Protein backbone atom coordinates (compact mmCIF):
# COMPACT_ATOMS: atom_id res chain seq x y z
CA UNK A 1 0.00 0.00 0.00
CA UNK A 2 1.38 3.39 -0.97
CA UNK A 3 0.47 6.89 0.14
CA UNK A 4 -1.56 5.82 3.13
CA UNK A 5 -1.82 7.65 6.43
CA UNK A 6 -1.49 4.37 8.31
CA UNK A 7 0.49 1.23 7.63
CA UNK A 8 -1.42 -1.97 7.00
CA UNK A 9 -0.31 -3.15 10.46
CA UNK A 10 -1.77 -0.05 12.03
CA UNK A 11 -5.09 -0.46 10.21
CA UNK A 12 -5.22 -4.11 11.27
CA UNK A 13 -4.58 -3.10 14.86
CA UNK A 14 -7.44 -0.56 14.78
CA UNK A 15 -9.72 -3.19 13.27
CA UNK A 16 -8.74 -5.76 15.87
CA UNK A 17 -9.61 -3.33 18.64
CA UNK A 18 -12.92 -2.48 16.92
CA UNK A 19 -13.68 -6.21 16.74
CA UNK A 20 -12.96 -6.52 20.44
CA UNK A 21 -15.52 -3.78 21.08
CA UNK A 22 -18.08 -5.70 19.00
CA UNK A 23 -17.48 -8.89 20.96
CA UNK A 24 -17.85 -7.02 24.24
CA UNK A 25 -21.17 -5.59 23.04
CA UNK A 26 -22.39 -9.10 22.10
CA UNK A 27 -23.66 -9.94 25.56
CA UNK A 28 -26.23 -8.79 28.11
CA UNK A 29 -28.80 -8.34 25.35
CA UNK A 30 -26.39 -8.79 22.48
CA UNK A 31 -26.03 -7.18 19.08
CA UNK A 32 -25.69 -7.97 15.40
CA UNK A 33 -22.27 -9.53 15.82
CA UNK A 34 -21.99 -11.58 12.64
CA UNK A 35 -23.29 -8.78 10.44
CA UNK A 36 -21.01 -6.18 12.05
CA UNK A 37 -17.81 -8.18 11.81
CA UNK A 38 -18.03 -8.33 8.02
CA UNK A 39 -18.02 -4.52 7.79
CA UNK A 40 -15.21 -3.69 10.22
CA UNK A 41 -12.33 -3.54 7.74
CA UNK A 42 -14.37 -1.43 5.32
CA UNK A 43 -15.39 1.04 7.98
CA UNK A 44 -11.92 1.24 9.53
CA UNK A 45 -10.37 1.84 6.11
CA UNK A 46 -12.89 4.53 5.12
CA UNK A 47 -12.59 6.58 8.31
CA UNK A 48 -8.83 6.10 8.70
CA UNK A 49 -7.73 6.66 5.13
CA UNK A 50 -10.35 7.88 2.72
CA UNK A 51 -12.81 10.24 4.35
CA UNK A 52 -12.28 13.78 5.53
CA UNK A 53 -14.11 13.20 8.83
CA UNK A 54 -12.43 14.06 12.11
CA UNK A 55 -13.65 14.78 15.64
CA UNK A 56 -13.18 18.50 14.93
CA UNK A 57 -14.96 18.83 11.57
CA UNK A 58 -18.27 17.07 12.22
CA UNK A 59 -20.28 20.26 11.59
CA UNK A 60 -18.13 21.55 8.75
CA UNK A 61 -20.17 21.70 5.52
CA UNK A 62 -17.04 20.72 3.62
CA UNK A 63 -16.57 17.43 5.49
CA UNK A 64 -17.18 14.11 3.79
CA UNK A 65 -20.30 12.13 4.65
CA UNK A 66 -20.71 8.47 5.54
CA UNK A 67 -24.22 7.05 5.79
CA UNK A 68 -24.57 3.59 7.32
CA UNK A 69 -27.74 2.32 5.69
CA UNK A 70 -27.01 -1.20 6.94
CA UNK A 71 -27.87 0.13 10.37
CA UNK A 72 -27.40 -3.09 12.30
CA UNK A 73 -23.65 -2.82 11.58
CA UNK A 74 -23.61 -0.10 14.20
CA UNK A 75 -21.27 -1.97 16.63
CA UNK A 76 -18.63 -1.87 13.87
CA UNK A 77 -19.22 1.86 13.43
CA UNK A 78 -19.07 2.66 17.15
CA UNK A 79 -16.11 0.33 17.67
CA UNK A 80 -14.27 2.24 14.95
CA UNK A 81 -15.41 5.61 16.32
CA UNK A 82 -14.05 4.64 19.73
CA UNK A 83 -10.66 3.79 18.22
CA UNK A 84 -10.47 6.97 16.15
CA UNK A 85 -11.45 9.37 18.91
CA UNK A 86 -14.96 10.14 17.68
CA UNK A 87 -16.60 8.43 20.64
CA UNK A 88 -15.38 7.98 24.21
CA UNK A 89 -14.50 4.31 24.70
CA UNK A 90 -16.25 4.26 28.09
CA UNK A 91 -19.55 5.03 26.39
CA UNK A 92 -19.51 1.61 24.73
CA UNK A 93 -20.09 0.16 28.20
CA UNK A 94 -23.48 1.89 28.06
CA UNK A 95 -24.57 -0.47 25.30
CA UNK A 96 -28.37 -0.90 25.57
CA UNK A 97 -28.53 1.30 28.67
CA UNK A 98 -31.27 3.91 29.06
CA UNK A 99 -28.56 6.28 30.21
CA UNK A 100 -27.12 6.55 26.70
CA UNK A 101 -28.13 6.14 23.06
CA UNK A 102 -25.96 3.14 22.17
CA UNK A 103 -28.60 0.74 20.89
CA UNK A 104 -29.05 -1.65 17.99
CA UNK A 105 -29.25 0.99 15.29
CA UNK A 106 -27.41 4.28 14.66
CA UNK A 107 -28.82 7.60 15.77
CA UNK A 108 -27.67 11.18 15.67
CA UNK A 109 -27.19 11.41 19.43
CA UNK A 110 -23.82 9.88 18.67
CA UNK A 111 -21.43 12.45 17.16
CA UNK A 112 -20.37 11.35 13.69
CA UNK A 113 -23.64 9.59 12.88
CA UNK A 114 -25.05 11.67 10.03
CA UNK A 115 -28.52 10.11 10.03
CA UNK A 116 -30.45 7.44 11.85
CA UNK A 117 -31.00 4.12 10.12
CA UNK A 118 -32.45 0.72 10.81
CA UNK A 119 -35.17 0.55 8.21
CA UNK A 120 -33.31 -0.80 5.20
CA UNK A 121 -33.19 1.01 1.88
CA UNK A 122 -33.57 4.54 3.23
CA UNK A 123 -30.09 6.03 3.31
CA UNK A 124 -29.23 5.55 -0.38
CA UNK A 125 -31.81 8.24 -1.12
CA UNK A 126 -30.81 10.45 1.82
CA UNK A 127 -27.20 10.24 0.57
CA UNK A 128 -28.46 11.20 -2.89
CA UNK A 129 -30.01 14.36 -1.43
CA UNK A 130 -26.71 15.30 0.20
CA UNK A 131 -24.76 14.51 -2.98
CA UNK A 132 -27.23 16.57 -5.03
CA UNK A 133 -26.80 19.55 -2.73
CA UNK A 134 -23.02 19.29 -2.95
CA UNK A 135 -23.34 19.35 -6.74
CA UNK A 136 -25.68 22.35 -6.58
CA UNK A 137 -23.45 24.18 -4.10
CA UNK A 138 -20.26 23.33 -5.97
CA UNK A 139 -18.52 21.41 -3.15
CA UNK A 140 -15.87 18.72 -3.39
CA UNK A 141 -17.14 16.51 -0.54
CA UNK A 142 -17.41 12.77 -1.00
CA UNK A 143 -20.58 10.96 0.06
CA UNK A 144 -20.58 7.29 0.99
CA UNK A 145 -23.52 5.04 1.70
CA UNK A 146 -22.85 1.54 3.04
CA UNK A 147 -25.54 -1.01 2.28
CA UNK A 148 -25.87 -4.66 3.08
CA UNK A 149 -26.33 -7.24 0.36
CA UNK A 150 -29.59 -8.41 1.91
CA UNK A 151 -30.66 -4.78 1.94
CA UNK A 152 -30.51 -4.85 -1.85
CA UNK A 153 -33.81 -6.77 -1.75
CA UNK A 154 -35.42 -3.40 -1.04
CA UNK A 155 -36.69 -1.77 -4.23
CA UNK A 156 -35.79 1.68 -2.93
CA UNK A 157 -32.07 0.81 -3.31
CA UNK A 158 -32.56 0.29 -7.01
CA UNK A 159 -34.75 3.38 -7.36
CA UNK A 160 -31.85 5.26 -5.80
CA UNK A 161 -29.38 3.83 -8.32
CA UNK A 162 -31.67 4.94 -11.17
CA UNK A 163 -31.87 8.46 -9.78
CA UNK A 164 -28.14 8.70 -8.93
CA UNK A 165 -27.41 7.66 -12.51
CA UNK A 166 -29.88 10.20 -13.92
CA UNK A 167 -28.26 13.00 -11.91
CA UNK A 168 -24.69 11.81 -12.69
CA UNK A 169 -23.74 11.73 -9.02
CA UNK A 170 -20.06 10.86 -9.33
CA UNK A 171 -19.49 12.32 -5.85
CA UNK A 172 -21.51 9.45 -4.38
CA UNK A 173 -20.19 5.97 -3.57
CA UNK A 174 -22.48 3.09 -2.74
CA UNK A 175 -20.48 0.46 -0.83
CA UNK A 176 -22.04 -2.98 -0.63
CA UNK A 177 -20.99 -5.14 2.33
CA UNK A 178 -21.34 -8.34 0.30
CA UNK A 179 -21.11 -10.94 3.03
CA UNK A 180 -23.34 -13.30 1.08
CA UNK A 181 -25.87 -13.65 3.89
CA UNK A 182 -29.14 -12.02 4.66
CA UNK A 183 -30.72 -12.34 8.08
CA UNK A 184 -31.42 -16.05 8.10
CA UNK A 185 -29.68 -17.61 5.13
CA UNK A 186 -27.37 -17.19 2.18
CA UNK A 187 -28.55 -14.48 -0.22
CA UNK A 188 -28.25 -16.79 -3.17
CA UNK A 189 -30.57 -19.30 -1.48
CA UNK A 190 -33.32 -16.73 -0.92
CA UNK A 191 -33.18 -13.75 -3.29
CA UNK A 192 -30.19 -14.29 -5.60
CA UNK A 193 -28.18 -11.15 -6.36
CA UNK A 194 -25.54 -12.36 -8.79
CA UNK A 195 -24.32 -11.27 -11.24
CA UNK A 196 -24.25 -8.20 -8.99
CA UNK A 197 -21.50 -6.26 -10.77
CA UNK A 198 -23.39 -6.47 -14.03
CA UNK A 199 -26.64 -5.44 -12.35
CA UNK A 200 -25.11 -2.18 -11.14
CA UNK A 201 -23.24 -1.64 -14.40
CA UNK A 202 -26.40 -2.10 -16.42
CA UNK A 203 -27.99 0.62 -14.24
CA UNK A 204 -25.18 2.97 -15.30
CA UNK A 205 -22.78 2.74 -12.33
CA UNK A 206 -19.00 2.39 -12.42
CA UNK A 207 -18.26 -0.69 -10.30
CA UNK A 208 -15.22 -2.03 -8.45
CA UNK A 209 -15.45 -5.48 -6.90
CA UNK A 210 -12.89 -6.22 -4.24
CA UNK A 211 -12.06 -8.29 -1.19
CA UNK A 212 -13.51 -6.17 1.61
CA UNK A 213 -10.99 -7.50 4.14
CA UNK A 214 -7.91 -6.60 2.09
CA UNK A 215 -6.60 -3.14 2.86
CA UNK A 216 -4.57 -3.25 -0.32
CA UNK A 217 -7.64 -3.84 -2.43
CA UNK A 218 -9.72 -1.31 -0.50
CA UNK A 219 -7.00 1.26 -1.04
CA UNK A 220 -6.68 0.48 -4.75
CA UNK A 221 -10.44 0.81 -5.23
CA UNK A 222 -10.97 4.03 -3.29
CA UNK A 223 -7.92 5.81 -4.65
CA UNK A 224 -9.50 5.32 -8.08
CA UNK A 225 -12.38 7.61 -6.99
CA UNK A 226 -14.13 9.02 -8.96
CA UNK A 227 -14.19 5.83 -10.96
CA UNK A 228 -15.61 7.46 -14.05
CA UNK A 229 -16.71 11.04 -14.63
CA UNK A 230 -20.48 11.42 -14.42
CA UNK A 231 -21.12 7.95 -13.01
CA UNK A 232 -22.30 6.70 -9.66
CA UNK A 233 -19.43 4.83 -7.94
CA UNK A 234 -20.23 1.37 -6.58
CA UNK A 235 -17.82 -0.75 -4.54
CA UNK A 236 -18.90 -4.32 -4.01
CA UNK A 237 -16.81 -5.52 -1.09
CA UNK A 238 -16.88 -9.30 -0.81
CA UNK A 239 -16.74 -10.03 2.89
CA UNK A 240 -17.24 -12.83 5.40
CA UNK A 241 -20.04 -12.76 7.95
CA UNK A 242 -18.47 -13.06 11.39
CA UNK A 243 -14.97 -12.25 10.04
CA UNK A 244 -12.32 -12.68 12.71
CA UNK A 245 -14.15 -15.28 14.79
CA UNK A 246 -13.81 -18.67 13.11
CA UNK A 247 -16.38 -20.18 15.45
CA UNK A 248 -19.14 -17.97 14.03
CA UNK A 249 -17.82 -17.22 10.53
CA UNK A 250 -20.29 -17.85 7.70
CA UNK A 251 -22.93 -19.16 10.02
CA UNK A 252 -26.53 -18.34 9.14
CA UNK A 253 -27.51 -18.57 12.79
CA UNK A 254 -24.92 -16.06 14.07
CA UNK A 255 -26.32 -12.86 12.61
CA UNK A 256 -27.36 -11.60 16.01
CA UNK A 257 -25.46 -12.95 19.04
CA UNK A 258 -26.03 -12.74 22.76
CA UNK A 259 -23.08 -14.55 24.34
CA UNK A 260 -22.51 -15.46 27.95
CA UNK A 261 -19.79 -13.55 29.81
CA UNK A 262 -17.58 -16.63 29.68
CA UNK A 263 -18.04 -16.96 25.92
CA UNK A 264 -17.08 -13.31 25.48
CA UNK A 265 -13.80 -13.99 27.30
CA UNK A 266 -13.10 -16.97 25.10
CA UNK A 267 -14.05 -15.12 21.91
CA UNK A 268 -11.68 -12.28 22.77
CA UNK A 269 -8.88 -14.87 22.87
CA UNK A 270 -10.17 -16.33 19.62
CA UNK A 271 -9.92 -12.91 17.95
CA UNK A 272 -6.19 -13.06 18.66
CA UNK A 273 -5.97 -16.54 17.14
CA UNK A 274 -5.17 -18.17 20.46
CA UNK A 275 -8.24 -20.29 20.91
CA UNK A 276 -11.36 -21.80 19.42
CA UNK A 277 -14.51 -21.22 21.35
CA UNK A 278 -17.12 -23.87 21.80
CA UNK A 279 -20.35 -21.93 21.90
CA UNK A 280 -23.28 -23.10 23.96
CA UNK A 281 -25.34 -19.89 24.06
CA UNK A 282 -28.58 -20.07 22.19
CA UNK A 283 -28.63 -18.69 18.70
CA UNK A 284 -31.02 -15.87 18.16
CA UNK A 285 -33.02 -15.03 15.12
CA UNK A 286 -34.73 -11.72 15.68
CA UNK A 287 -36.15 -11.03 12.30
Amino acid at each position, binding site marked *: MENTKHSEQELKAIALNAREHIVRMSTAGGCFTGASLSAVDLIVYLYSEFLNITPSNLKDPNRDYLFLSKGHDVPALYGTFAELGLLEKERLQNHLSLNDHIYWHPNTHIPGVEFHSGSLGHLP*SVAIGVAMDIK*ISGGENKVICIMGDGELNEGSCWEAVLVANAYKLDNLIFVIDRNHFQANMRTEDLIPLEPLTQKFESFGAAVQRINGHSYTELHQAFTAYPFQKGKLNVVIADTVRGKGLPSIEERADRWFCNFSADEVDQLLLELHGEHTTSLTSETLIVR
Partner: protein
Amino acid sequence: MSYEELLTETALANERVIVMTAENRALVRNLPAVLGKRFIDTGITEQTMIGAAAGLALRNRIPVIHALAAFLTMRAFEFVRTDLGIANLPGKLSGFIPGFLSDANGPTHQAIEDISIMRGIPNVTVFAPADEDDLVKMLPQIWQSPNPAYTRINTRKTGYEHEPFELGKAEVVATGSDVTILTYGLMFEQALIAVEILKNEGLSVGLVNMRSLKPVDEAIILQTAASSNLIVTLEDHFLTGGLYTIVAEVLLQYQTTAKVMPIALNERWFRPALLPDVLQNEGFTGKQIAERILGYQTGHTQPSILTPEFSE
Protein backbone atom coordinates in the same frame (compact mmCIF):
# COMPACT_ATOMS: atom_id res chain seq x y z
CA MET B 1 -51.60 34.88 -7.33
CA SER B 2 -51.32 31.23 -8.32
CA TYR B 3 -49.50 28.43 -6.50
CA GLU B 4 -46.80 28.41 -9.15
CA GLU B 5 -46.31 32.16 -9.00
CA LEU B 6 -45.99 32.04 -5.22
CA LEU B 7 -43.53 29.14 -5.36
CA THR B 8 -41.46 30.88 -8.05
CA GLU B 9 -41.35 34.11 -6.06
CA THR B 10 -40.45 32.26 -2.86
CA ALA B 11 -37.72 30.16 -4.47
CA LEU B 12 -36.18 33.16 -6.20
CA ALA B 13 -36.12 35.08 -2.94
CA ASN B 14 -34.69 32.21 -0.91
CA GLU B 15 -31.73 30.16 -2.16
CA ARG B 16 -32.53 27.48 0.40
CA VAL B 17 -35.68 26.44 -1.46
CA ILE B 18 -35.39 23.37 -3.70
CA VAL B 19 -38.42 22.37 -5.76
CA MET B 20 -38.82 18.61 -6.11
CA THR B 21 -41.32 16.46 -7.93
CA ALA B 22 -41.88 12.80 -8.67
CA GLU B 23 -42.83 13.68 -12.23
CA ASN B 24 -45.96 15.53 -11.18
CA ARG B 25 -45.41 18.81 -12.99
CA ALA B 26 -48.93 20.22 -13.26
CA LEU B 27 -48.21 22.97 -10.73
CA VAL B 28 -44.53 23.53 -11.47
CA ARG B 29 -44.33 23.60 -15.28
CA ASN B 30 -42.27 26.78 -15.51
CA LEU B 31 -39.96 26.15 -12.59
CA PRO B 32 -37.21 24.11 -14.34
CA ALA B 33 -36.41 27.09 -16.55
CA VAL B 34 -36.45 29.52 -13.62
CA LEU B 35 -34.61 27.46 -10.99
CA GLY B 36 -32.16 25.35 -13.00
CA LYS B 37 -30.39 22.95 -10.66
CA ARG B 38 -32.71 23.87 -7.80
CA PHE B 39 -35.50 22.04 -9.61
CA ILE B 40 -35.20 18.26 -9.13
CA ASP B 41 -37.49 15.75 -10.81
CA THR B 42 -36.67 12.27 -9.49
CA GLY B 43 -39.08 10.54 -11.85
CA ILE B 44 -41.80 8.27 -10.53
CA THR B 45 -39.94 7.54 -7.29
CA GLU B 46 -41.84 8.98 -4.32
CA GLN B 47 -39.68 7.11 -1.80
CA THR B 48 -36.37 8.25 -3.26
CA MET B 49 -37.70 11.79 -3.59
CA ILE B 50 -38.59 11.95 0.11
CA GLY B 51 -35.27 10.40 1.19
CA ALA B 52 -33.39 12.83 -1.06
CA ALA B 53 -35.44 15.69 0.38
CA ALA B 54 -34.24 14.65 3.84
CA GLY B 55 -30.65 14.70 2.56
CA LEU B 56 -31.15 18.16 1.07
CA ALA B 57 -32.68 19.37 4.34
CA LEU B 58 -29.61 18.01 6.20
CA ARG B 59 -27.65 20.46 4.06
CA ASN B 60 -29.92 23.32 5.21
CA ARG B 61 -32.21 23.33 2.20
CA ILE B 62 -36.00 23.65 2.28
CA PRO B 63 -37.37 21.10 -0.18
CA VAL B 64 -40.90 21.76 -1.47
CA ILE B 65 -42.00 18.33 -2.60
CA HIS B 66 -44.70 17.52 -5.17
CA ALA B 67 -46.58 14.37 -6.02
CA LEU B 68 -50.15 13.17 -6.14
CA ALA B 69 -51.41 13.19 -2.55
CA ALA B 70 -52.15 9.46 -2.57
CA PHE B 71 -48.62 8.46 -3.55
CA LEU B 72 -46.85 11.15 -1.57
CA THR B 73 -48.53 10.13 1.68
CA MET B 74 -48.93 6.41 1.14
CA ARG B 75 -46.34 5.06 -1.31
CA ALA B 76 -43.71 7.05 0.56
CA PHE B 77 -45.34 6.90 3.98
CA GLU B 78 -42.48 5.25 5.83
CA PHE B 79 -39.97 7.64 4.25
CA VAL B 80 -42.02 10.61 5.43
CA ARG B 81 -42.30 9.11 8.90
CA THR B 82 -38.73 7.85 9.21
CA ASP B 83 -36.69 10.39 7.24
CA LEU B 84 -38.64 13.62 7.74
CA GLY B 85 -40.64 12.80 10.88
CA ILE B 86 -38.02 11.26 13.18
CA ALA B 87 -35.41 13.83 12.16
CA ASN B 88 -37.97 16.69 12.20
CA LEU B 89 -36.65 18.07 8.91
CA PRO B 90 -38.47 20.87 7.08
CA GLY B 91 -39.63 18.90 4.02
CA LYS B 92 -42.72 20.63 2.66
CA LEU B 93 -45.10 18.14 1.06
CA SER B 94 -47.54 19.46 -1.54
CA GLY B 95 -50.13 16.75 -2.18
CA PHE B 96 -51.94 17.21 -5.46
CA ILE B 97 -55.55 16.15 -6.16
CA PRO B 98 -56.42 15.12 -2.59
CA GLY B 99 -59.89 13.95 -1.57
CA PHE B 100 -62.65 14.34 -4.18
CA LEU B 101 -60.22 16.29 -6.40
CA SER B 102 -58.95 12.98 -7.81
CA ASP B 103 -62.43 12.85 -9.37
CA ALA B 104 -62.43 10.22 -12.15
CA ASN B 105 -59.09 8.57 -11.36
CA GLY B 106 -60.50 5.79 -9.21
CA PRO B 107 -59.67 4.49 -5.74
CA THR B 108 -55.92 4.07 -6.39
CA HIS B 109 -55.66 7.86 -6.56
CA GLN B 110 -58.07 8.71 -3.73
CA ALA B 111 -56.21 10.33 -0.85
CA ILE B 112 -58.98 10.22 1.72
CA GLU B 113 -56.86 8.98 4.62
CA ASP B 114 -54.05 11.49 4.07
CA ILE B 115 -55.02 13.77 6.98
CA SER B 116 -55.31 10.77 9.26
CA ILE B 117 -51.94 9.22 8.47
CA MET B 118 -49.92 12.42 8.18
CA ARG B 119 -51.18 13.83 11.46
CA GLY B 120 -50.27 10.55 13.15
CA ILE B 121 -46.56 11.22 12.61
CA PRO B 122 -44.87 13.18 15.42
CA ASN B 123 -43.45 16.54 14.21
CA VAL B 124 -45.45 16.51 10.97
CA THR B 125 -47.90 19.41 10.58
CA VAL B 126 -51.01 19.20 8.38
CA PHE B 127 -52.84 21.89 6.41
CA ALA B 128 -55.85 22.03 4.07
CA PRO B 129 -56.59 25.35 2.33
CA ALA B 130 -60.15 26.09 1.22
CA ASP B 131 -59.22 27.45 -2.20
CA GLU B 132 -56.43 29.18 -4.12
CA ASP B 133 -56.73 32.43 -2.16
CA ASP B 134 -56.47 30.50 1.10
CA LEU B 135 -53.60 28.40 -0.29
CA VAL B 136 -51.40 31.35 -1.17
CA LYS B 137 -52.19 33.01 2.15
CA MET B 138 -51.22 29.87 4.09
CA LEU B 139 -48.14 28.60 2.28
CA PRO B 140 -45.59 31.30 3.17
CA GLN B 141 -45.91 30.45 6.88
CA ILE B 142 -46.02 26.73 6.21
CA TRP B 143 -42.82 26.93 4.17
CA GLN B 144 -41.09 29.10 6.78
CA SER B 145 -41.88 26.81 9.70
CA PRO B 146 -39.06 24.53 10.94
CA ASN B 147 -41.20 21.35 10.78
CA PRO B 148 -42.14 18.86 8.11
CA ALA B 149 -45.51 19.86 6.67
CA TYR B 150 -48.16 18.20 4.55
CA THR B 151 -50.51 20.46 2.59
CA ARG B 152 -53.59 19.32 0.70
CA ILE B 153 -53.17 21.39 -2.44
CA ASN B 154 -56.38 23.05 -3.57
CA THR B 155 -56.15 25.60 -6.39
CA ARG B 156 -59.88 26.09 -6.98
CA LYS B 157 -61.30 29.59 -6.97
CA THR B 158 -64.31 30.31 -4.76
CA GLY B 159 -64.33 34.09 -4.84
CA TYR B 160 -64.14 34.17 -1.04
CA GLU B 161 -61.48 36.50 0.31
CA HIS B 162 -59.80 34.88 3.30
CA GLU B 163 -58.27 36.44 6.39
CA PRO B 164 -54.52 36.44 6.86
CA PHE B 165 -53.33 33.03 8.02
CA GLU B 166 -51.90 32.20 11.39
CA LEU B 167 -50.38 28.77 11.89
CA GLY B 168 -52.61 26.65 14.12
CA LYS B 169 -55.58 28.99 13.79
CA ALA B 170 -58.90 28.40 12.10
CA GLU B 171 -60.82 31.06 10.20
CA VAL B 172 -64.28 31.87 11.52
CA VAL B 173 -66.38 32.75 8.49
CA ALA B 174 -69.69 33.05 10.37
CA THR B 175 -71.02 32.31 13.84
CA GLY B 176 -74.42 30.81 14.60
CA SER B 177 -76.27 29.28 17.52
CA ASP B 178 -78.27 26.53 15.77
CA VAL B 179 -75.62 24.81 13.71
CA THR B 180 -71.95 25.35 12.90
CA ILE B 181 -70.16 23.62 10.04
CA LEU B 182 -66.48 22.84 10.63
CA THR B 183 -64.76 22.03 7.37
CA TYR B 184 -61.50 22.22 5.41
CA GLY B 185 -60.22 22.08 1.86
CA LEU B 186 -62.45 21.49 -1.15
CA MET B 187 -65.64 21.15 0.93
CA PHE B 188 -65.43 24.82 1.97
CA GLU B 189 -66.87 25.70 -1.45
CA GLN B 190 -69.98 23.57 -0.85
CA ALA B 191 -70.23 24.65 2.80
CA LEU B 192 -70.67 28.27 1.66
CA ILE B 193 -73.68 27.14 -0.40
CA ALA B 194 -75.06 25.04 2.45
CA VAL B 195 -74.81 27.98 4.85
CA GLU B 196 -76.87 30.20 2.53
CA ILE B 197 -79.60 27.57 2.23
CA LEU B 198 -79.68 26.97 5.99
CA LYS B 199 -79.95 30.72 6.64
CA ASN B 200 -82.80 30.98 4.14
CA GLU B 201 -84.54 28.23 6.09
CA GLY B 202 -84.32 30.45 9.18
CA LEU B 203 -81.40 28.90 11.05
CA SER B 204 -78.60 30.71 12.83
CA VAL B 205 -75.59 29.19 11.07
CA GLY B 206 -71.86 29.27 11.72
CA LEU B 207 -69.01 28.24 9.40
CA VAL B 208 -65.39 27.59 10.28
CA ASN B 209 -62.58 27.00 7.78
CA MET B 210 -60.23 24.83 9.83
CA ARG B 211 -57.13 25.50 7.65
CA SER B 212 -54.61 23.98 10.06
CA LEU B 213 -55.48 20.43 11.10
CA LYS B 214 -52.27 19.91 13.03
CA PRO B 215 -51.71 21.90 15.10
CA VAL B 216 -55.47 22.29 15.38
CA ASP B 217 -57.34 25.29 16.76
CA GLU B 218 -58.72 23.67 19.90
CA ALA B 219 -60.21 26.93 21.17
CA ILE B 220 -62.49 27.26 18.13
CA ILE B 221 -63.72 23.69 18.53
CA LEU B 222 -64.48 24.24 22.23
CA GLN B 223 -66.16 27.59 21.55
CA THR B 224 -68.31 26.04 18.84
CA ALA B 225 -69.29 23.18 21.14
CA ALA B 226 -70.39 25.72 23.75
CA SER B 227 -72.16 28.18 21.47
CA SER B 228 -73.83 26.06 18.79
CA ASN B 229 -76.53 23.40 19.26
CA LEU B 230 -75.10 21.21 16.54
CA ILE B 231 -71.60 20.80 15.11
CA VAL B 232 -71.29 19.38 11.60
CA THR B 233 -67.88 18.10 10.60
CA LEU B 234 -67.71 18.17 6.81
CA GLU B 235 -64.75 16.59 5.00
CA ASP B 236 -63.82 14.67 1.85
CA HIS B 237 -61.95 12.14 3.95
CA PHE B 238 -62.64 8.82 5.61
CA LEU B 239 -64.72 9.18 8.75
CA THR B 240 -61.83 7.67 10.70
CA GLY B 241 -58.89 9.85 11.56
CA GLY B 242 -59.93 13.18 10.04
CA LEU B 243 -61.76 16.20 11.40
CA TYR B 244 -64.53 14.19 13.09
CA THR B 245 -61.88 12.27 15.02
CA ILE B 246 -59.96 15.46 15.80
CA VAL B 247 -63.11 17.08 17.22
CA ALA B 248 -63.82 13.96 19.30
CA GLU B 249 -60.25 13.99 20.64
CA VAL B 250 -60.45 17.65 21.61
CA LEU B 251 -63.85 17.34 23.30
CA LEU B 252 -62.68 14.29 25.24
CA GLN B 253 -59.43 15.95 26.23
CA TYR B 254 -61.35 18.87 27.74
CA GLN B 255 -63.98 16.59 29.31
CA THR B 256 -66.84 18.12 27.39
CA THR B 257 -69.26 16.89 24.79
CA ALA B 258 -71.44 18.16 21.96
CA LYS B 259 -73.96 17.00 19.42
CA VAL B 260 -71.85 16.26 16.34
CA MET B 261 -73.02 15.19 12.90
CA PRO B 262 -70.17 13.87 10.75
CA ILE B 263 -70.35 14.14 6.99
CA ALA B 264 -67.48 12.04 5.63
CA LEU B 265 -66.84 8.79 3.78
CA ASN B 266 -67.57 5.94 6.15
CA GLU B 267 -65.38 2.91 5.41
CA ARG B 268 -65.61 3.26 1.64
CA TRP B 269 -63.98 4.80 -1.40
CA PHE B 270 -66.09 7.03 -3.61
CA ARG B 271 -67.47 6.20 -7.03
CA PRO B 272 -65.12 7.77 -9.62
CA ALA B 273 -66.54 10.37 -12.03
CA LEU B 274 -66.02 14.02 -12.89
CA LEU B 275 -66.08 16.19 -9.76
CA PRO B 276 -69.64 17.65 -10.05
CA ASP B 277 -71.04 14.14 -10.50
CA VAL B 278 -68.92 12.78 -7.63
CA LEU B 279 -70.27 15.43 -5.25
CA GLN B 280 -73.85 14.82 -6.38
CA ASN B 281 -73.52 11.03 -6.21
CA GLU B 282 -71.90 11.06 -2.76
CA GLY B 283 -74.35 13.60 -1.33
CA PHE B 284 -71.71 16.29 -0.85
CA THR B 285 -73.19 19.22 -2.81
CA GLY B 286 -74.05 22.30 -0.78
CA LYS B 287 -77.76 21.67 -1.24
CA GLN B 288 -77.51 18.02 -0.20
CA ILE B 289 -75.44 18.95 2.85
CA ALA B 290 -78.01 21.58 3.90
CA GLU B 291 -80.89 19.16 3.44
CA ARG B 292 -79.07 16.46 5.42
CA ILE B 293 -78.70 18.93 8.30
CA LEU B 294 -82.32 20.13 7.99
CA GLY B 295 -83.76 16.64 7.61
CA TYR B 296 -86.00 17.70 4.71
CA GLN B 297 -85.87 18.63 1.02
CA THR B 298 -85.90 22.31 0.04
CA GLY B 299 -86.75 24.13 -3.17
CA HIS B 300 -83.29 25.67 -3.44
CA THR B 301 -81.19 25.02 -6.50
CA GLN B 302 -77.60 23.86 -6.37
CA PRO B 303 -75.27 26.26 -8.22
CA SER B 304 -73.23 24.57 -10.94
CA ILE B 305 -69.85 23.17 -9.92
CA LEU B 306 -66.81 23.73 -12.11
CA THR B 307 -65.09 20.60 -13.38
CA PRO B 308 -61.34 20.82 -12.74
CA GLU B 309 -59.03 20.48 -15.72
CA PHE B 310 -57.32 17.13 -16.06
CA SER B 311 -53.82 17.38 -14.74
CA GLU B 312 -51.38 14.76 -13.48
